[in-house]
């Protein structure tokens, strides 16, 4: 390796200084070109994300994705939550309440760590009673600003 680089005569741009490093080979220029492209792409995407970022607070929507699934006497209610706003929401609290005849029979809560712009997360609430017999409410109760 070392020999390979020392073998080629080293043309120096400034003969007054001692040059330990030979001038860049074609291979080094090619990798430098590719590397610059990669970095430029990353920086460009950051700037693009910056330019298109909407200055909106989080807009959190939650909805039930599938029908209720019953297994072993338990009722699974799958849901999906998404953030249509511009900022990230932290510690998003989701509450599910099952009301039968106007009184809350069962409730569940769940915390989602992070929900950034356009991000979706899925989960499920589990009830002992059939949610189809009563009124099921899924709602987001709170979040923290990042």
């Amino acid at each position, binding site marked *: *390796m*070392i020999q*390979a*680089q020392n*073998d*080629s005569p080293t043309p120096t741009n400034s003969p007054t200084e001692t*040059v*330990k*490093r*030979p001038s*860049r*080979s*074609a*291979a*080094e220029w*090619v*990798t*430098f070109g*590719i*590397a*610059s492209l*990669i*970095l430029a792409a*990353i*920086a460009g*995407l*950051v*700037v*693009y*994300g*910056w330019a298109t*970022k909407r200055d909106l607070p989080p807009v959190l929507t939650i909805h039930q994705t599938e029908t209720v699934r019953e297994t072993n006497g338990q009722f699974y209610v799958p849901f999906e939550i998404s953030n249509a706003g511009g900022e*990230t929401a*932290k510690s998003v609290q989701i509450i599910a309440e099952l009301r039968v005849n106007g009184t809350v029979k069962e409730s569940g809560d769940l915390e989602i*760590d*992070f929900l*950034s*712009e*356009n*991000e*979706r997360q899925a989960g499920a609430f589990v009830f002992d009673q059939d949610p189809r017999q009563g009124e099921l409410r899924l709602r987001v109760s709170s979040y923290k600003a*990042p």
Partner: protein
Amino acid sequence: MGTSRERRNQWAGELNDLIRGASGGFLFGIPLLYTMEVWWVGSSANPPRLLLALLLTFAIVFMLNRTAGFRRTRDIYAIDAAMDTVEAMAVGAVCAGFVLVLLQEINLQTPLNEALGKLIYESIPFTLGVALANQFLSGSPQENQQESSANPGSDQGTLHATFSDIGGTLIGAMIIAFNISPTDEIPMLASAVTAPWLLLIMAASLHISYAIVFAAGFANQQKRQQQQGIFQRPLSETIMSYLVSLLAAMVMLVFLTS
């Protein structure tokens, strides 16, 4: 010396430099890759902070490249160090991105800003590792020669040398993995993984290990030829190191998890 040979040497040398850089990046960057706090910081960082992180990485790695660097040659001009820094950052970003995809932290559903945040924050330790690769993975040629002449190594039995290889692998595995194995990220990542994805992770581990063995091979070629163990070809060495690592991981998981 013919021109074609010179050119081939150039490319081989460049490839070798890049592989050494990437290996250093993996060695240094892996523990932070398995840290969910870094993912979170990346997820919630805003674009100006990401640009600042890129600039800071550049500044730090530039200073490192003035003294260390991943190339065999020393950078004495600032412009060389700057160009090497760009390359180190690109190698770091590619490696970090690859592992983030492998760990399913970045997938097709990840929003752009979040993916960029994770990538940029995780690529900082990788880039530092790339810049330190020479310190990790190579001794100076003189040093190697001294060691190999001081250690004729012919009176060691093959069996003994093989055991010392395995022991070295085991110690290395412990040093790198001890700060990963007791963390919550492992069960968390494992719970989300599917069987085909596991096979992909195994394939990637083997390739990365092979690259590191290959890079280390260039550093200590002479010393290695003195070694008498049965695992002296890069392929068998890689597979042996993978098996030893699996064993070490199993032992650590048994002892470190409740």
